[in-house]
Each structure stands twice: as C-alpha cells, then as structure tokens.
C-alpha cells in the first residue's frame, strides 16, 4: 500500500495518509493522482470563499506535489527513473504548474517510503525536508540558502548519507523568484517548465532529500517478469530507443528539424537556420561528448556527459545540453558557438532555470533590441544582439540574480515584451514559451501548443513524432486535416505516461496496449488499452477544469500572430501559416468541449465528480 506525505510549511506539521486505491484506479498515480488532489484543494479553497483566480502562485496557498507512479522505481520497468511535479498555479503562466524530471530522485523517493509528497504553506525561514526510510523532518536551511544547485546536492547527500540518496532543490534563481526558475535534482536533471522553482523559493523550501531501501511491491511478479523481458527486448531492438537515442541523444534532432524547415531561428523569424549543423547532435558527439548517462533503471540512456576542453566557455564536466536547450540557447538566439551553448546550459543547471523559457526570453529581447525597442540604458552594457555568445552567457547569470537587464529577463518573455510595448514578439502560449518546432512546418504541433493545459508545451502531445519522424506512422506535416485526432490521442496517452511516471521516450517503441499489460502486472488490476486511454482522457479533462477556473477559455487556446498570420518566409514550409481555428473547431468537437471547457456531459462520461 502506497503512502502520501503531507507537509505544511506554515505550521511545520508533517502527516501521512495511505493512497486511496479507488482513486488510483481512476487516476493511476503520478500526475493523475496529483491533479485529483489539487482539485480537492481547489474545492476546499472555494468552500472557504477563496476564488481560484485569486490564488497567488507565490503565496502560501499554492500547493506543490512531487509525484511518482506505479511504474517508478521498479527494476525492469521500461525507463522507470522519473517523477512529476504539479502545482495549483504557475507563477509564469497563472495556469496549472506541471513539470517532469529524470535522474534518481523519483525512484529514491519511493524507496524512502512515499509515492507522493504534498507541500503547502510557506516557511518563515529557509528549510529543507529530509525523508529517510519513512521518517520525514524539516531542517533549518540557512546554511544552504544562496548556494548553487551542485553545492546544495553535494552537501545534503553527504549530510544525510545512506543508500539511494537523492536531492531535489532550487538554486539562486528559485530563491530570487525568477519566473522561469526550476526544480533541479541530481545536479543536472530538471523539472524544468512553468517556474516551479520560484514556487519553492517563495515557500522558502530549499530542498527535499530522500533516502531509503524500502521495496516497491509488484502484484504479479511472475507475470511482470515475463512482460518486462518482452518489452525491454522491444525497446532494445527498436532503432530509436535501442540505437539512435543512446548514441546521439536528443540533439540529433537539430538537423532533421532544420532540413524539414521548422527549426525556429532568431525568435521564430524563420524556420531555417543556415548554420544548424554547428550546434547539432553530430557536432556535439564529435567535439564535446565524453559518455552517456542514463536515468535510474533506463536502458535507453540518452543523457549526455559533455566537456569543453578550453577557451572562454570551458567546462570540464557537464550534462546535456538536450535538443530543446541547444535550440533555445542556440538557434533561437542565433548563437552558433556550441561551446557557448553548453556553458549557458550548464549555468542554467547550476543556477536552476528552464533553458527553454530563458533562451526564448533572451531571443525575444534580442529582437526587441535589434528593432530599437529597448533603450540602451536598460541593457547596462549587455550587447544583446542575435548571435552574440558572450551576451548569451552573461544574460543567463544576470537573469538568475536579477541584476542589470536580468531583472527584466527574469519576468519571462510575455511580461518582458509587454513592458517594451511589443507583446507580439513573445513566442509563448498562456505565457509559457514554446519549444523547438515551428508549427508553420508541422500544423499538428501548433494545435497541441495552443491547447496544452500548461501552456506552450511540446511534450503534452508530441505530434512531431508522426508528422516529422514517422512514428508510429507518417502523416503530412503541412496539412491541418486530421490533426485534431492525433493531438487528442497523444495528449491522453502522455497523461498515462506521466501518471505511470516513466519516460515518454518509451512510446517511440511501446504502445498503449504494452502499458496496459505491464501496469496490470504491477498493480494486479485487469487494465485494458481502452481503460488506460480513458484514464488519460479523464486526467486531461480534470486538469482542464482547473485551468478554466483560473480564467482561461477558448480564446487563450491561441498561437502568436507570427505563426497564424505571417507566412513562413523560406524553406520547405515557405508560405505556410497555421490554420489554427479550423483545427481547434475539430479538436473541441472530438474533446467534447465548448469554448475550451469540457461539457457536463463529457465530465459525466469520464466519471469526473466535481
């Protein structure tokens, strides 16, 4: 029987409760169970007369949940080394907060004795939480406040000792309430998006350290063993999960996305980067890669360990950068020096910031500056032109410490561009900066960006997979026809993965049927493919109910005008715009939504009790 830990930072009280297995059957675990709990909190606040729209993302009433699922931490489960973090509200977007990370923290949290850790309230002074073999305590963190991520992880691992010890923490960016601050774990792993580092910073929760040796039970061990072997064989023999990703990591996407004409360049002014190869996975593998590094228990091992031997951007040990970081800090800013991109990414890890949101914000500032919209005195000497690697690296640490122009970068691109009178230059949806695929070259990902509950997000429904990569089958990226169906399926299935809490990359090789089979063996439930897809749809819809309560409606399921009104100027997608309204209409019909909100009929069908 799993357990939930409740920590109230205002009162300092710590309690626990068992997992409700009826709820787990409906919502699985991980993100799903967290969404269910968060909705309960929202209802309690409403009963107390607090409107969801008035919940301050940086206030004590915000609730953060660290969540694992039935697959996390089980040896032999496909890529089981992840955890998911949810919050009532994101300070960057005002919508729901949601992020996912790899490394060791997820499994070790389970070994420490808890499936979910719920944090509410706020401490007056900096604290950290330790969870060691079922025992949870709050400690004074005044000696850690101000320390970077690497020092914090090292100190706490040494202090706690023990087996299976992992640290999730914030860096200076989170302490300084930078809007794109993130939660880091195991030095270089990030629960990156939606600014959850700032939420912990406002709560003065510096870190959570977990350690333990509790076993994770399996309901049908013999059946599990057989299915695990079968699925791991499938993953090993798959060309992507067994060869491509292990050898080249995610940055291998740079060239293929560019050749298809949808690699956003210089704040999305075009989708073709003439020097993309300089920041590609191939170049990284040849010039900077030391070795691979897997998350706990993962056979794909797509993580990169890199080294920049010498020069102004020297880094003797780093991890990453991933495709998204390479794009945001490289192509989007016009920087072609991969060593500078590696350094900037390293600083994001050290200081605790989301490189996607940060890179995109810097890129929007570069366009504002080049067009003369930012007065020189605001920049305080920072030469923020496209392609300037030194300015890129400087902008990273200035943002973390909110110093000089960094205090404006720290707002995120939406507020930054509003400040300088040009909100249209923020390439974001619901305030969350979009990742590395220009939807004028792949219409489905555009619909997904517009309708993702947490804002401009690619992994919510990664239709790049069929549109560009041909997985599970190839569909034409340039047509809007039929995209709504694909977006819905991917969004619902991703909820299943984030509630199982294992890695999304397993879905390049495994199907919903595979997930139903292995989850049945772990849980003892008789799950079918249809049932788990319905669970995914249920989670997505309950999350959307919350998003609606924060005031988001159909008009917020939008894309920047650059993508819907400015034709792509060059490349294979030349002349294309995103026909969003057409796709949205079809999507809402499929979803059973009106104006971006689920109907009562849809909620009844999904057995969501409001």
């Amino acid at each position, binding site marked *: 029987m799993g357990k939930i830990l409740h920590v109230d930072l205002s009162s300092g009280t710590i309690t626990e409760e068992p997992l409700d297995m009826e709820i787990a059957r409906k919502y699985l675990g991980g993100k799903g169970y967290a969404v269910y709990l968060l909705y309960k909190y929202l209802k309690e606040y409403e009963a107390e007369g607090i409107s969801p729209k008035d919940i301050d993302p940086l206030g004590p009433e915000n609730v953060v949940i660290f969540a694992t699922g039935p697959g996390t931490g089980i040896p032999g489960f496909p890529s089981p080394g992840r955890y998911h973090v949810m919050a009532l509200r994101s300070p960057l977007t005002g919508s729901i907060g949601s992020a996912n990370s790899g490394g060791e923290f997820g499994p070790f949290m389970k070994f420490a004795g808890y499936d979910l850790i719920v944090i509410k309230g706020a401490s007056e002074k900096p604290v950290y939480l330790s969870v060691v073999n079922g025992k949870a305590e709050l400690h004074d963190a005044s000696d850690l406040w101000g320390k970077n991520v690497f020092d914090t992880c090292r100190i706490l691992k040494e202090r706690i000792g023990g087996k299976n010890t992992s640290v999730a923490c914030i860096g200076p960016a989170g302490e300084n309430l930078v809007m794109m601050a993130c939660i880091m774990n195991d030095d270089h792993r990030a629960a990156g998006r939606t600014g959850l580092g700032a939420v912990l910073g406002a709560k003065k929760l510096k870190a959570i350290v977990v350690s333990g040796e509790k076993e994770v039970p399996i309901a049908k061990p013999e059946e599990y063993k057989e299915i695990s072997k079968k699925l791991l064989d499938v993953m090993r023999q798959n*060309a*992507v999960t067994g060869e491509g990703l292990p050898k080249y990591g995610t940055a*291998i996407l740079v060239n293929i996305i560019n*050749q298809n004409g949808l690699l956003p360049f210089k704040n999305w002014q075009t989708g073709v980067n003439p020097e993309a190869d300089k920041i590609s996975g*191939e170049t990284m593998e040849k010039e900077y890669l030391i070795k691979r590094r897997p998350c706990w228990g993962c056979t794909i091992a797509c993580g990169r360990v890199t080294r920049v031997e010498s020069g102004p951007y020297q880094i003797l040990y780093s991890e990453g950068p991933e495709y998204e970081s390479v794009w945001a800090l490289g192509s989007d800013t016009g920087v072609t020096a991969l060593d500078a991109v590696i350094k900037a990414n390293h600083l994001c890890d050290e200081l605790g910031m989301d490189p996607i949101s940060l890179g995109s914000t810097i890129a929007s500032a570069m366009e504002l500056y080049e067009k003369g919209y930012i007065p020189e005195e605001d920049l305080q000497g920072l030469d923020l032109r496209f392609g300037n690697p030194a300015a890129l690296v400087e902008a990273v640490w200035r943002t973390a410490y909110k110093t000089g122009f960094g205090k404006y970068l720290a707002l995120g691109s939406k507020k930054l561009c509003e400040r300088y009178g040009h909100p249209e230059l923020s390439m974001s949806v619901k305030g969350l900066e979009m990742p590395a695929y220009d939807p004028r070259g792949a219409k489905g990902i555009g619909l997904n960006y517009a309708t993702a509950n947490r804002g401009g997000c690619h992994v919510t429904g990664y239709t790049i997979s069929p549109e560009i990569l041909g997985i599970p089958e*190839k569909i034409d990226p340039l047509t809007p026809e039929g995209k709504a169906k694909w977006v819905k399926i991917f969004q619902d299935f991703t909820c299943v993965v984030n509630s199982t809490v294992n890695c999304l990359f397993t879905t390049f090789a495994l199907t919903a049927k595979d997930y139903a089979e292995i989850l049945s063996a772990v849980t003892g439930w008789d799950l079918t493919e249809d049932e788990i897809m319905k669970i995914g749809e249920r989670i997505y819809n309950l999350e959307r109910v919350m998003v609606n309560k924060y005031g988001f409606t159909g008009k917020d399921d939008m894309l920047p005008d650059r993508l819907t009104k400015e034709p792509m100027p060059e490349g294979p997608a030349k002349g294309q715009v995103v026909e969003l309204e057409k796709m949205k209409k079809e999507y809402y019909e499929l979803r059973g939504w009106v104006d971006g909100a689920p109907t009562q009929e849809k909620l009844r069908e999904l057995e969501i009790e409001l």
Partner: protein
Amino acid sequence: MLFASLREKYGVKEVEINWSGGGLKEFFLEASKKLGSEFLSEVFEGEKPRDDRIILVDGRNIKDIRGKVRVKPESVVAVFPPMAGG
C-alpha cells in the same frame, strides 16, 4: 546530405552528384558511384525506398510527396536513419 550514423559510416556530410534530373532510385544509383555500391541498399530495398530511412527531397519527406518522386538537377536530398527525441 547524410546525417547521424550514416554520416559516420560514409565519412561525409554531403556529396555533390552530377545529375540532370530523374527518379529517386536513379539518383541514388548515381550517388553510389561516389559513396560505394553498398549505398544503394542503404536507402533502397528492391524497387522501394527503405521504410527505416527518412528521405527528404528539398525538405519534403518522400512519404508525403504524391505521385512519383522527381529529383531535379538542383535538388537537395537528405537521408537520415531512424531518430527521435523531445
């Protein structure tokens, strides 16, 4: 243009082909003269392009092109092994 493991295997990022226009298989036959005879089996299986290769002609995936694929004299053909990311 070659990418990822194909770039490593053949030791080149790109080759220029003397080409006056024609079909895809004929184009790759011509490319084989520079890259080696086994290159054709890298991209074609019998008369059909290999399903486990991503082949772009001027940035369009051949699976999205209706009708017969034509390679013009100035076309850029890009070949990728299976790949993915996030």
